[in-house]
């Protein structure tokens, strides 16, 4: 079984998309000649040519806006926003048009596309390079918002996203870009909008996504040594949420902790907790706890590990929940 990084898996998924659908276009800043600042698009321009894989001017609203026109002309854009913090200039195009074109035209002019955004911190980056913008997108009806946590899942989810009839915001946890996983790249398996049970556990369930899934698993490992058997669910799809899996995992244990990098206030955890209250209140044995980034700007590199949910913060939250 081969080892694959998330960067490699995403690269393979884009290659697969370009090969299987001759309407797929891959473009963005530095994605062509350079292969992307993270090398996710490496080699694609050489293989598929400058018409299907191309560099754009440094203009994120332009990238999102031309994606709409290209989609209306029958192409399937797979656009890259170079960094989370640089995706904000495109928000007007994404919120006002990408998300709403199908609705505004009563389904007659949908604009299927994938917008890939490396997100989250943990790589000792500069400011504006560690943002967690998922709430902005998940709050906008008309978008699908997904975030893989492992290389093999990243491959599957990106291939599936390129087949979606609706626009997909594809959030890539950049601190997991170089993590390796062993296994074959497969497109079948879990559907795009289903959560994944990473491990079972009867004491409590940790609900997480993106880079924090790996950290949640580490926390679960540590807790297991203490005799606390904790389950982990990778949400994968942030909009729509897989409410069934969320509710059933909470019903099974009666205790839940939600973990994400994004700041707490109105972070995705707020929605997850509210849904748990609506769907599984009677099963709850303890208040649901959130372990998140703080309600501050993302910090400089030297402080980011104090800001991000640590294994210790997660285990402490689980213990508190279990002991409640």
């Amino acid at each position, binding site marked *: 079984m081969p080892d694959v990084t998330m960067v490699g898996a995403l690269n393979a998924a884009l290659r697969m998309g370009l090969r299987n659908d001759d309407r797929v276009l891959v473009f963005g800043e530095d994605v062509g000649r350079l292969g992307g600042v993270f090398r996710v698009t490496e080699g694609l321009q050489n293989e598929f040519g400058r018409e299907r894989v191309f560099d*754009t001017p440094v203009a994120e609203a332009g990238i999102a*806006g031309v994606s709409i*026109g290209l989609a*209306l002309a029958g192409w399937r854009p797979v656009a890259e926003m170079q960094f989370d913090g640089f995706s904000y200039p495109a928000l007007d195009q994404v919120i006002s048009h990408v998300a709403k*074109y199908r609705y505004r035209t009563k389904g007659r002019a949908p604009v299927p596309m994938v917008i890939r955004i490396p997100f989250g911190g943990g790589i000792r980056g500069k400011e504006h390079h560690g943002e967690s913008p998922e709430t902005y997108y998940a709050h906008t009806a008309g978008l699908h918002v997904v975030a893989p946590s492992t290389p093999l899942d990243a491959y599957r989810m990106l291939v599936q996203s390129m087949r979606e009839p609706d626009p997909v915001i594809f959030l890539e946890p950049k601190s997991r870009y170089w993590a390796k996983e062993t296994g074959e790249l497969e497109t079948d398996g879990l559907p795009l909008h289903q959560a994944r049970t990473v491990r079972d556990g009867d004491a409590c369930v940790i609900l997480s996504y993106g880079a924090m899934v790996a950290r949640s698993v580490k926390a679960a490992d540590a807790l297991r040594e203490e005799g606390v058997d904790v389950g982990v669910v990778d949400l994968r799809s942030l909009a729509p949420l897989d409410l069934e899996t969320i509710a059933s995992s909470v019903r099974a244990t009666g205790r839940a902790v939600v973990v994400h990098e994004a700041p707490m206030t109105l972070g995705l955890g707020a929605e997850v907790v509210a849904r748990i209250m609506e769907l599984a209140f009677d099963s709850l044995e303890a208040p649901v706890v959130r372990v998140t980034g703080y309600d501050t700007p993302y910090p400089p590199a030297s402080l980011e590990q104090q800001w991000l949910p640590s294994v210790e913060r997660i285990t402490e939250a689980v213990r508190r929940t279990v002991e409640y």
Partner: protein
Amino acid sequence: MSTDQKESADAPFQLIAPDGTPNGIVDVGLSQEELRELLRLMILARAIDRDCVALQRQGELTVYPAFLGQEAAQVGSAFALEPDDFVFPSFRELAAAIVRGVDVVEYLQYHRGTWHGGPYDPYEHRFAPICVPVATQIVHAVGYAMGLKLDGKPGCSLAYFGEGSSSEGDFHEACNFAGVFGAPVVLFCQNNGWAISVPSSEQSSAPVYLRAEGYGFPGVRVDGNDVLAVLKVTREAAERARSGGGPTLIEAMTYRMDAHSTADDATRYRTPEDVAAWSDLDPIERYARYLQREGVADEAFRVDCETEAARRVGEIRAGVISTPPPPEDDLFRFTYSEERRA
């Protein structure tokens, strides 16, 4: 350069003087029937526009943005396009929609508040949804044109926008993409003098059309109240685009004779004298005088056009008034490809 020289350099291209006399030889390659059709369309568009204001006052439309005075800019440019070209309007291009054949009753569902920007099928007449976030549609037009070019298909797109839109970042990004990718697109600015209450003199310090040079493609300023001049420059731009010549920026100098919308009170920021000066430049009067002078259309033709327009207005009014609100299920039907209720 003296001010006088600057002004003459920026003088818009014109074929017909305001009094209807031709500026030199006017040959735009239209048949007499097509020449008459332009007048008919402008008269029809104005009649519909005037009745839309009335419909709003009577509570049948929500807010309505009138295009009074801009008939030549819209009719001339839309008439210059081929059926396969794709138009990306802003929110004041009902006259262009009429030329494209968009069903006016369907179009007005937007202003009636029964649906958002795309109540008609955008593909049927290749007329994109009405677009309100200022300048965003220009980028869509460029993307569409890039798509045509990638496909090797003939055709072009045309984006309508106002001089106010030229201040937005999206205008710049659209122009820059258009230039870099050699997109077959016509960037059609209607400089109607006002961005709600702010005059164009306070919107930018140089003419809009001059910016084209910075993007590496031609820019042209045209008398937007001269329907034949507008038609000619638009057709040249569209032909250049279709034949691989890339984008063109057109700045059509016109005037918004009515308020920004029915929710606006233009007397708060401009005088009757400001408007009167432009009344003398009325695009329909000018063109009717020209056609009469050339022996192409007489007063009787104009009366026929007015009669026909009144009849169409009556039909449209009846259609608008009889349109019920959409079913409540429509709240959920179109957000995603699969209905989702939440």
